């Protein structure tokens, strides 16, 4: 399978009468975008805004982040199985408005947090302070059932990304990246001496606000499935996860999954990247055991010498992570885990409650309880009341001048467990 990603570098965004890219500046037809989204009769109102890196803007509560793209060659247009018919993605050519992002905002339940600060201290902790963001704030019609509400907002974000992505259709990209991986036997024949490596990607799949979809299929219903990495890089996986702000995998991070990209970078050099296993995280223990066994069996069938496992979320998925690790190591498959930790506000707590002696190689993506101090914003996109939710965790979290303290767990992508961000913990 061969996929070309044509990156069109975006250096600014503005509103205009039509949607196009010129000299790296993305112009978005705001009225057209709103009208297009409102074709969904479940949507009552849409506010579209722009947040640029460095502006004193806070976006809250963020639901999802999506990269605007367009398919220019081959099948797999849009988000297959979700916004368009299911066709094979992961091949041909896709143009990406690199540096731009659609950020959906909207309360589905009152306790969502998910903050992106575009400037200052907060900006350091989220990768989405560096993107030019088109924010899409969705209000739905009265009386919508909560599952339908979530779906409406989820689809609106994807459709907005598609609408804006069209601007890249006729533009010559600034760079073209090629991702090519043949069949397993073919690659192994090419690199007989390189260790075969699989990527095990765990996904939150536990119900409302806690879901992930592959080709539109709710991953809660699947057994662990083998996927070609290109499929994920080409819109096959989308996020329906509105909680776990710091360590959820946004749709944008599926589209640009850093583990896949970094394994690709070593393919044919230090290792033979054999594929991705998509693993649902269940709430029941028997579900967790079934998934762990099934995953390890797939890894053995595919002849893996090593595996990288990334987690999504915190709490019950920690059990899945360690079970999978233990069983992989027992099967003599070298395993590296990526996860975040909770060492308490002061960093003095034992980081893990669950432990496994087999987890000898772990990448820590930071302490979810690390406290950050965020100065007041000049402009808030979304629901300012969510700031109270975010800061409401303990007394004295908001100072008189509006400066507030919050734990990293409220910041989008801060402790990304696919290792998307450059944060860690070290013992001092």
């Amino acid at each position, binding site marked *: 399978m061969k996929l070309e990603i044509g990156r069109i570098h975006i250096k600014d965004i503005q509103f205009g009468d039509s949607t196009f890219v010129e000299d790296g500046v993305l112009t978005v037809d705001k009225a057209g975008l709103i009208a297009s989204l409102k074709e969904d009769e479940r949507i009552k109102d849409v506010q579209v805004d722009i947040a640029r890196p460095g502006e004193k803007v806070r976006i809250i509560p963020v639901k999802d982040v999506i990269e605007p793209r367009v398919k220019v060659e081959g099948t797999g247009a849009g988000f297959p199985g979700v916004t368009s018919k299911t066709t094979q993605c992961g091949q041909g050519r896709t143009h990406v408005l690199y540096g731009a992002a659609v950020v959906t905002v909207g309360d589905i339940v009152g306790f969502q947090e998910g903050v992106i600060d575009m400037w200052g201290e907060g900006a350091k902790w989220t990768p989405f302070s560096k993107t030019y963001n088109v924010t899409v704030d969705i209000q739905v019609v009265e009386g919508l059932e909560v599952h339908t509400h979530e779906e409406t907002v989820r689809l609106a974000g994807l459709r907005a990304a598609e609408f804006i992505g069209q601007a890249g259709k006729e533009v010559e990209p600034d760079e073209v990246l090629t991702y090519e991986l043949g069949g397993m036997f073919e690659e192994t024949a090419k690199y007989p001496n390189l260790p075969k490596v699989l990527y095990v990607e765990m996904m939150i799949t536990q119900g409302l606000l806690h879901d992930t979809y592959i080709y539109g299929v709710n991953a809660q219903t699947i057994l662990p499935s083998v996927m070609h990495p290109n499929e994920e890089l080409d819109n096959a996986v989308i996020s329906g996860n509105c909680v776990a702000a710091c360590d959820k995998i946004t749709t944008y991070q599926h589209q640009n999954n850093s583990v896949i990209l*970094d*394994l690709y970078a070593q393919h044919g050099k230090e290792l033979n990247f054999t594929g991705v296993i998509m693993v649902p995280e269940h709430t029941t223990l028997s579900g967790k055991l079934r998934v762990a066994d099934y995953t390890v069996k797939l890894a053995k069938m595919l002849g893996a010498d090593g595996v*990288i496992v990334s987690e999504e979320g915190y709490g019950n998925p920690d059990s899945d992570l360690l079970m999978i690790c233990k069983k992989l190591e027992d099967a003599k498959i070298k395993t590296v885990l990526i996860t975040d930790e909770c060492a308490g506000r002061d960093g003095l707590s*034992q980081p893990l409650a669950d432990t496994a*002696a087999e987890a*000898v190689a772990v*990448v820590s993506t930071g302490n979810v309880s690390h406290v950050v101090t965020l100065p007041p914003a000049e402009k808030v996109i979304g629901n300012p009341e969510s700031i109270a939710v975010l800061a409401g965790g303990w007394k004295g979290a908001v100072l008189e001048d509006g400066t507030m303290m919050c734990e990293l767990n409220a910041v989008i992508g801060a402790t990304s467990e696919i290792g998307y961000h450059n944060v860690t913990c070290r013992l001092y």
Partner: protein
Amino acid sequence: MSDKFKVLYYVNQFFGQVGGEDKAGMSPEHRPGKVGPAMGFEGALKGEGEVVGTIICGDNYFNENKEESLKFILNTVKETSPDVVVAGPAFNAGRYGMACGELAKAVAAELKIPVVTGMYVENPGVDVCKDKAIVVSTADSAAGMRKALPAMAAIASKLAKGIELDEPEKEGYIPQGIRKTLFTEKRGSQRAVEMLIARFKGEEFETEMPMPVFDQVDPAPAIKDLSKATIAVCTSGGIVPEGNPDGIQSASAQKWGKYDVSGMNGLNAPDFYSTHGGYDTAYANENPNRVVPLDLLKDFEKEGIIGKVHDWFYTTTGTGTSVSNAQKFGTEIGKELLNAGVDGVILTST
């Protein structure tokens, strides 16, 4: 006024050149200037700081009179108002380490003055203070003095100037147990890929989240017939006969004792009491059977539930006792019990 920073130094009777074990009972005294290792320490400061005074205190005195000793030390610190307090290095000396640890904790927590000490990683004093003070990792004996002092001096110098310390491995101190959240040059996924490649190549790699290591002991098989078994009691609760004939330390025990109880139906107060320095012993002293349940075992023996109570009970003090000493005691006691044909042991802790 000199622009050098001021250091107050703490040493025990031995390093303070007063004497050996015979002087371990000396109460703390403050001498102006530098004594013992304080001299080498000041040299290692390379003129940036000076030792303005040295407190010398006997190890036994400190551990047996902790409150008074700390009061004296804290008062001296207040009077001399140093920029840094330095104690030791205590290497693997348990009582000296406990003294350094306790004073380091008190000075850092109560007076907010930085403290540097030095110990061997297994010294029980490490856990007392490592999250509050900086403990330089030293060798297990005074042979490591020459290496310890420059490391302690470098850290004291940084602390006096308010410079943030680098990673524990680089500075040579024992990690304080704080998980710091930091930015890294490489993103997490790249670190994961590199870690995996290192594993493939058999190269050294460092996990970013070490799992806690527990010493696992397989339980012995169950006793098949209790009514024929000989049962012994062993405690780390510091129960000793009146007068503590073997001089078992109240903390950081260096030895264990065994006492014949074959003729007794229980441990009577005040014939037995606890010498333990780490818990409120009032209830143990009121009725020592609360820690060493000899009375109940004798009842069991009479009722035929167990075959026999072993003639001797074994005792030591758990508080501050180093892991290596505890392992040694356990092995020695275990061997005796085995030779005596004991079938089962009840271990009581406090």
